Structures are given as C-alpha cells and as structure tokens.
C-alpha cells in the first residue's frame, strides 16, 4: 500500500521527478563508464604488453637486466630442453644483444632483439622479416618501429652499418636493411629496438641456441638455471600507474554522486515543507511518524530505483555504441604507454552492481535525511501548515 502511495506521489511530481531520475541515472552511467574505461585501458595495456613482449611470463637468464645493456652479453643461456620442446604457439625465444648502428655515419646505440620468426605466441608485425628472401650474409634485414625509425632518421629500404661483437668479443659489422617500418602497439619494443630474426642474431653473434629469455604461454614449473618472472612482475610499473589514476577518478565519482544527491535532497526538503498539511492529515488518520518518514523516504528513493532502470537502458545503448567505435588515443602512442589502438570499455558486472547499489544507498540516505524531522512535527500545527516556517 505504502509503495503504491509513494509511487503515485512520486510520479505526480512530473518533470521534477524526471529530472532527479535523469541526473541520478547520468551519474550512474558516468561512474560505470569511467570505471570501465579504466578497466579497458588497463586490460588493453596489459594485453598489449602480453601480446608483444610478456606473454605468460619470461624465463630469464638469472641476473639479466634490460636496463644494463653492457651486461646483456654476459647473461645468455642455451635454451633448456624443457622449454625448447614447447610448440611455437607456446613459447617465443628471444635473444637481446647490444649493437651500434651508424645511420649517416653517426653512432646510435641499439638493442638488437632477435625473435624466433616461427613463433606465434607473440603478435608482432614482423612479416617483413619473415618474407625477406635476400641473402643474409650480405645484408641483415631488420624491422623498426615508427618511433625508432624517426629517431634514427631511417625509412623503409634504407641501409645503415650495424656493428656488434660476437660471443668472443670479435668485432663484426654488416649493412642493415630496413625491410619494414611498423606500428608497434607497445612503444617499449619500439624505441631503441632493432628487430631481427633470432636465427640471424644467433648466427651474427655466434650464439647458436642461446637466449636472453623465453616468453612462455604458461608457467612450466621451475627450470634449472633460469628464473621465472611473472606477468605482474614484468608490467608492475604500468599497473601501478593505472592504479594511481584510478585514485583520482574516485574524486570525480564523489562529485557526480554529490550532485545527483543534492537534487533529491532539495526535492525532499521542499516536499516536507510544502506537504505539511498532508503529513498532518496522515498523522491524524493514524499513521505513525515512522511510517510517514518511511513513505517520504520511499518516495524520494523512487528516483534512485527508477534511475537504475533508466541507467540500465540508456547505459546499454551508450555502451553498445561506444564499443563499436572505441576511444581513439592514438596521440598517446607517442608516449611510453604501451597502447596504440582504440580503447574499448571493459565492463565488470560486479562493479556495475556495486556502483548502482552505492548510488541507490546514497539516494535513500539523502531522501531520508530531510524527512527525519517529520517525527518531531506537531500534528496539529502540521495540519494547519504551520509546523515548519
């Protein structure tokens, strides 16, 4: 009974009720959108790192540190059989060595990264290396990311002298041919990196069967003489960055909820003020103050309940549209964030539910706060509309 009265009272507020519902629904959509966008960003970043570099983790030569190029040559290993026998879809062998590139006779230190060309675990745009048919003895085919190509002033088809040391420290140099300049979704494998075929790099450095690390699809258990680094360890810095951003996003959510709440709060105060006679009448008819508070609170909460429905309908439409376009952040690709393509939302139902529940609770609270004073009203004064002035 109380519910139907509340509904009737609420719906008769007309446009005011609609506004409250709209505001609350928009707040819900905005918060869910915001959370999901971060999820999407994080998921995409992680996915790109996993896709281009990390996979399911690395088995590394112990002590290998990507930040210490001069030590790369000291931290290589023959690939252990346990990893060697994995199919190319489950592992990618990688050898990293220091090299010196001389574009226009200027020194440019590079990371020569050799990757098994038959692997299918990592998704790298290295078709240029695969399809290169020229003789490797004369010239070394390499693929460069766009950023690297820009920095070194090289373009597709250019050559530059590449100098390196083999396993014994013997100087070697050959012409390197840029067979392709590609877009790397992960800028960390772009800048300063010269992508080579693993067999070429092994041949060049006289390191048959050697690796700096092996990216694997799944953890294979401990492997002798190697240390395993998990995905989380390998991308810890990025996860941290996003986590920090989320903290700031929370401020935004609070503001949204606050604005939505203020509308309902305002409506409720006015309701109590304008409908004193009604309250008095209800009291005179025998309703307890608590029942009337309940009625008014329910009325106010109607906005929240209805906004859940509206948010679900509007939100679904909006999100469906968004998923079809995505957020273009291509301008970010220049920065160090390993995402290049459009960002899509990653909606977690648990988070949606939590957002809705929290907002509804806040709305119920702000519906209740202004009507509490009904309990203190003198029914006789209220009947005459003089209880609150």
């Amino acid at each position, binding site marked *: 009974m109380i519910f139907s009265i509340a509904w009737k009272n609420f719906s008769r507020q007309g446009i005011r009720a609609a506004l409250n519902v709209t505001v609350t629904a928009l707040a819900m959509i905005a918060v869910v959108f915001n959370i999901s966008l971060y999820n999407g960003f994080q998921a995409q970043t992680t996915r790109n790192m996993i896709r281009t570099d990390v996979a399911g983790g690395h088995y590394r030569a112990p002590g290998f540190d990507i930040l210490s190029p*001069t030590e790369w040559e000291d931290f290589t290993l023959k690939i252990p059989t346990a990893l060697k026998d994995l199919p190319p879809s489950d592992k990618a062998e990688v050898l990293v060595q220091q090299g010196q590139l001389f574009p226009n006779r200027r020194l440019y230190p590079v990371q020569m990264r050799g990757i098994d060309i038959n692997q299918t675990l990592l998704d790298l745009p290295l078709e240029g290396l695969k399809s290169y048919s020229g003789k490797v003895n004369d010239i070394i085919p390499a693929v460069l990311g766009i950023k690297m190509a820009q920095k070194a002033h090289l373009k597709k088809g250019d050559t530059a002298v590449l100098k390196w040391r*083999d396993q014994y420290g*013997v*100087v070697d140099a*050959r012409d390197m041919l840029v067979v392709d300049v590609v877009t790397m979704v992960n800028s960390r494998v772009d800048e300063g990196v010269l992508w080579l075929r693993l067999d070429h790099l092994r041949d060049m450095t006289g390191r048959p069967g050697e690796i700096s690390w092996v990216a694997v699809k799944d953890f294979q258990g401990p492997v002798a003489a190697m240390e395993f680094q998990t995905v989380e360890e390998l991308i810890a810095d990025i996860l941290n960055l996003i986590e920090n951003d989320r903290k700031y996003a929370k401020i935004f959510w609070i503001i949204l909820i606050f604005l939505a709440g203020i509308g309902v709060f305002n409506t409720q105060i006015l309701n109590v003020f304008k409908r004193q006679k009604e309250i008095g009448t209800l009291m005179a008819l025998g309703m307890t103050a608590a029942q009337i508070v309940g009625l008014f609170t329910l009325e106010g909460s109607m906005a929240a309940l209805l906004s859940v429905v509206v948010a679900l309908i509007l939100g679904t439409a909006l999100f469906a549209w968004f998923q079809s376009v995505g957020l273009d952040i291509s301008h970010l690709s220049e920065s160090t964030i390993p995402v290049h393509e459009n960002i899509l939302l990653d909606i977690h139902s648990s988070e949606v539910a939590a957002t809705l529940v929290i907002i509804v609770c806040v709305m119920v609270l702000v519906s209740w706060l202004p009507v509490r004073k009904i309990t203190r009203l003198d029914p006789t004064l209220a009947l005459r509309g003089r209880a609150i002035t």
Partner: protein
Amino acid sequence: MLSFKLKILFFASILTLCLAFALPLNAAEPDAQKLLEAVDDNLWSNTKRIDGRLMIDNGRKERVLTWEHWMEGVDKAYTRYKSPAREKGTKMLKIEDKLWMYTPRTDRKLLIAGHLLRQSMMGSDLSYEDMMEDKKLSAAYKATFVKKEDLQKMECCVLLLVAHDKTTTYQTRKLWVNMEKEIVLKQELYAKGGKLLKQVEYFDYRELGERLFPRKMIFRDLLKENTKTTYMFDDIEFDVDIPKKYFSQSILKR
C-alpha cells in the same frame, strides 16, 4: 748478454737481407707469411722507447698530446703522457692481457677491462683494445698474397691476414707491404663479416740503425665521419735498457 742480443740482431738482419734478395726472384707470388714476419721484425724489437705526439682530430677540433712510451716485447708496455697540462702524468701500463691506467687527478690505478676496453682511448679513433694488441701480426694471423698495387709511389704486395684464433678482435686485415723495404704502408681492419672498419696509414719511413720505422701513423675509424688520429714518432730508440720499475704496477703512482 748484450753481445748475445747483438748477435741475434746480426743474424736477423742477415736473414732479412737474404729475404729481401730472395723475394724479387719469387715476384709472382711472394711468401706472404715470411714477408709478414719480416715486417714484424722491423717494427718490433725486444725493447724500445718512443717520444711522440698524438694528434686527435674529432672533426671539430684537434688535440695534441705528447707522450713517452716504453715497450718490451709485445707483452709489456708503459706510456706516460707529458702534455697538455690536463693529461700530464697520466700513465698506462700493459702487462700481458691487463691494462691499467693511472691519472694524477684520481691518484688511482684503474683497471681497464670488460666494457671499458671497447671505449675510445683518450678520445681517439683507437679503442683501448686496439692498443692492447699483444701478439705480433705474424703470430696472430695467417697471411696470403692477394695482388700487387702501387701505394705512396712504391710497389706493394697486398696481403690478406686471417686470424688463427677465433677470439682475435679483428678477424681479417689487409696489409700493403713494400717488399723491398719490408715496410707496411697501409693496413685495413675488417669486421668478421668483411666490412672495412678502420684504416691505418704509415708515412715517412726513416732509417733507425738497421730498421725502418715510420715517422707518422694515421688511424681512421671509417664508420665515423671526419675523424682521424695521428701518431707522430719523433724520437725512437731500439733495444734500450728499461728500468724494471716501468713495468711494475708500482709505477702507477704519483
């Protein structure tokens, strides 16, 4: 002791002379390895002392350093820089495969090893490693005759040198050798894959006792633009007595 050395020298020069006469007979294809040995004998001696200048031109500026150098065989070498003021007192000591440096400013003995060996020596076109050559060319490489060519208005044999050992930094070199005088006029250093990396030219050979020694040597790193390093050997003495302390780590002090 000294007389024994002299005898050796005497025989060596006889041998050289014989070789010098022998070579033209075999003009079509001289014995490359023997020629290389002769060249080595000409350049290397038991001991020598050199007073010289090092001119480093990085394409923008030229720096001139003066130095004194003592060598015993191929294993031991000691260099002391005399000028400019900021390099004065800098010492380098090579004993077998180790290289130390001493600078008065740090008053420390610094080991030049590992990665540091590959760095440019005093900003020149030579790396410390290039300086560390610890074997005679004839010992480290097998020489073969390639062709004859004129250089500096002299007829030269071009020799191809291939390293015996797979750890030798430069696996192949080319030498332009004048057979008559058994002197090198030019040397090219190649990467393992055959790319020309560095070039050394030798000028103004003069007679010093029974040897011919260049007055000037120019190094070029061909991967870089417009750089060159010139060694001027102003005063050379062969087979001198070198105080023992020069080849001891204790010299690396103030």
